[in-house]
């Protein structure tokens, strides 16, 4: 159905209200972009228009307002994308591909040379360590909640996992900073304060609840009839889980793991606080106990002192981060959608 026919389906009243309202909202947004001082009066005009039209034609105005709120997420996502890219452009233009494949010196404010290689390496290593922790333990937790636990245990574990998700990242970072970093230095003679390993471990724990919750939803959405079928054939509970339920929920579980990866990639405060944030690759490269920086902690640790090209390079890091996480998010959404289709339910 084309837009014209859709608009044709609306009555005149709705069309008038929608038209005038849309013009006012667009004007308000545009004025905020170019002349923020004008936004106030235009927004007031919009509010007055809405009040009047609501008194005249309640239903149509409500419908228009609801439509407007619905576009907000799309608009916000659009603005985030545009403004990240706009601010990253100077760095991309100046540094070109060096930004992504540069070599030593990686990040030098003195000579204005910026490459994101150490940050991407740091993010990669911490994410891999985090997922080695979060993926198996998270899926096992989901299996426990949905397949094994008796009622009372489920009612303890499920809220506990959610509470675990609620602990602020800076608190995890604080614990990593004061306790685990110290432990590593005292007991394992780590020469530097902070390491990729500890960061990955803490981020893994933080990504754990995401994996558990989403994977549990996926397992719970497998129809009971499939389980019953297996059990009627004499399979044990565990056989049913491993050979019927988990394979059926496989795509949902992988979506959960992908979401967990997204969380781990985007985790900021724990990495900022625990890592040493040195803008060099660890030496030797494979030293997981080495110190470097992640994309997120680069932004959080340097935004204050940055200006000019360095500031733009931070936005370039933001773009890399945003694109990566968006990729994982969309992939997991597509997988989930496919699973919903194949299982045939609308769970």
């Amino acid at each position: 159905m084309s837009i014209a026919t859709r608009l044709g389906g609306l009555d005149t009243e709705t069309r008038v209200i929608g038209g005038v309202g849309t013009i006012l909202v667009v004007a308000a947004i545009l004025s905020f972009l170019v002349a923020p001082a004008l936004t106030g009066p235009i927004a007031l005009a919009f509010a007055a228009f809405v009040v009047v039209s609501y008194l005249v034609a309640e239903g149509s105005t409500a419908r228009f307002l609801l439509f407007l709120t619905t576009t907000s997420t799309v608009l916000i996502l659009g603005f985030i994308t545009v403004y990240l890219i706009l601010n990253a452009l100077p760095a991309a233009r100046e540094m070109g591909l060096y930004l992504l494949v540069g070599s030593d010196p990686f990040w030098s404010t003195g000579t204005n040379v910026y490459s994101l290689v150490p940050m991407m390496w740091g993010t990669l290593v911490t994410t891999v360590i985090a997922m080695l922790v979060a993926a198996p333990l998270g899926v096992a937790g989901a299996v426990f909640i949905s397949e094994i636990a008796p009622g009372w245990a489920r009612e303890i574990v499920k809220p506990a996992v959610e509470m675990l998700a609620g602990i602020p990242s800076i608190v995890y970072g604080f614990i990593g900073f004061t306790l685990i970093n110290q432990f590593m230095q005292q007991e394992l003679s780590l020469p530097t304060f902070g390491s990729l390993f500890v960061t990955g471990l803490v981020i893994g724990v933080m990504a754990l609840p995401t994996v558990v919750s989403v994977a549990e939803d996926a397992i719970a959405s497998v129809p009971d009839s499939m389980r019953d079928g297996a059990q009627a054939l004499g399979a044990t509970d565990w056989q049913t889980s491993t050979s019927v339920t988990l394979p059926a929920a496989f795509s949902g579980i992988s979506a959960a793991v992908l979401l967990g990866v997204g969380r781990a990639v985007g985790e900021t405060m724990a990495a900022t606080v625990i890592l040493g944030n040195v803008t060099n690759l660890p030496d030797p490269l494979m030293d997981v106990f080495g110190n470097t920086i992640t994309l997120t902690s680069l932004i959080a640790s340097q935004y204050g002192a940055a200006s000019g090209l360095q500031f733009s390079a931070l936005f370039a890091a933001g773009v890399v981060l945003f694109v990566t996480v968006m990729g994982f998010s969309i992939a997991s959404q597509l997988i989930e959608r496919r699973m919903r289709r194949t299982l045939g339910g609308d769970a």
Partner: protein
Amino acid sequence: MSLGTPSDTADALVGGDSSTRELVGGGLAALSFAAFVVGLVALFQYVPVDTTVGGVSVATAIGGALTLVGVGIVALGAASYAGVFETEPGHTGGILSAAFLGLLWFAVGGLVGAQTLGLSTVWPVVALATGGFGAAVALFVREDIGVTLSAGLFVLLSGLVVVTGLVGPGWSWDPANVSIVVTGAVGVPVVALFAGLVGAWTAARVYGGFGPQGRQTGAYVLVTTNAAAMIALLGSIVGFIAVRGFGPMTEGIKYGLFWGPWTWFNPPLLDTWVVVEGPIVWFHWPFVMEGYSTLGAGVDGVLPAIVGTVWLVVGAVALAVPLGVGAAVFLTEYAEQGRFTSLVEISTNSLWSTPSIVYGLFGLAFFVPRLGNTNSILAGQLVLGFMLLPLVVITSTESLKSVPDEYRDASAALGVSKWETIKSVVLPASLPGVITGVILGIGRIAGETAPILLVTTSSPFPSEVAGVIEGGFRFTSAFPFVAIPDLNLVQASSALPYQLFAVIGAGLGENLDFAWGTALVLLLVVMSFYAVGIGSRIYFRRKLDQ
């Protein structure tokens, strides 16, 4: 032939000696689990491995227990193979178990090859050989001898290494290319953790009598341990912060009951003040009622941070809830499934997974220059509102979808218009779900540091509360006779999570207690939102099920 009683039949099916098998298997599983727990305690140095209890060091005790478990498991496997017990072993240990054991033996071979034998280039060959052998034994030999041999030998080897002191107090290992040095204080507990779990898993398999039942028992032991560990993790994080933070947080609390003036007034005819007196409860809690003490005297408090967090949350909720609920209503009540709705759905989910620091960057580039070119509460409110929005949309959509269609139909049958139906029937019915989602969302954004770090905060140790409301509500003599307070949101402020970050950034040193106190207050604020949110959801679900 007489019919046996049910218990006779059961005995015949399970086999006469099953009780011995269960007893020994269960005992070994418990012993391994004890080694695991002791290893955990020793790893965190609560009880270092060189502590001596009753003449035996912890390391020796762990090693002895593991050796015993290893021998026991192999013996049980052999006994089962010889037919001493009635078991139901499969032809193979299963691919999953074999892969798991292969990985373990790969690690053993690799470590021994590279470190003990000092093979610099051919250690992968040794590792592959041992790994392949460990996996093959478990995969191709009958289950009761294969799995027990592969796993039991691993546990036995671990136990022997520890009990002989090969890995023990005084031992240290400096792996090449990695900047750590492993000593016995960490090495022994790590061995205990791995071998303890493997031992418990295998012993549980024996307990279940191998076969499908045995595998189930073994798997359940591991999965349940994992779930228990998660709860223990939550408990230890919260407990640790509570223990360390309680002292600083409650320092200097004073309270008392006084007799003092409640109110006073000057009646028009009497030319004197009438004072009404009564008991007054006085309560002073410096940590949450004062700012950071600038003079170094008195208790450092976090009041500016608390006030900042309250403003941020209020603003974010005021922005996100109308937008989010409105979008959810449109998506469920008006929109037809199509390209537009899936676009909205994808952008909502994408916003939900966008990293918080990216929101911060966006606020820094978009709002800060346009809102007074300074870090401000308003910018923080907008950015946090954007972060809250997708959560409100998702939870409200779910809640609206769960309102039965009968409600809508009944209302429509009475001739009520669509918007009127939504306003007075659908929205009230979905309210509990919406509120729960909002509460959980508040918990999330109240603890968010990265975005406000970029757009809201400036001073790391504020002593003054940001004066958002100025002037106060009062009557004036000039038109329009009332003065409403000025709302100044375009100014920087602290917030609880930022306060914690600022202390860490400034170097803990003498501020360590202040940091623990701040962490506890932050945790209490966030966790109470989560507790209320989760609790109310459980309550409303129960009510719905009735």
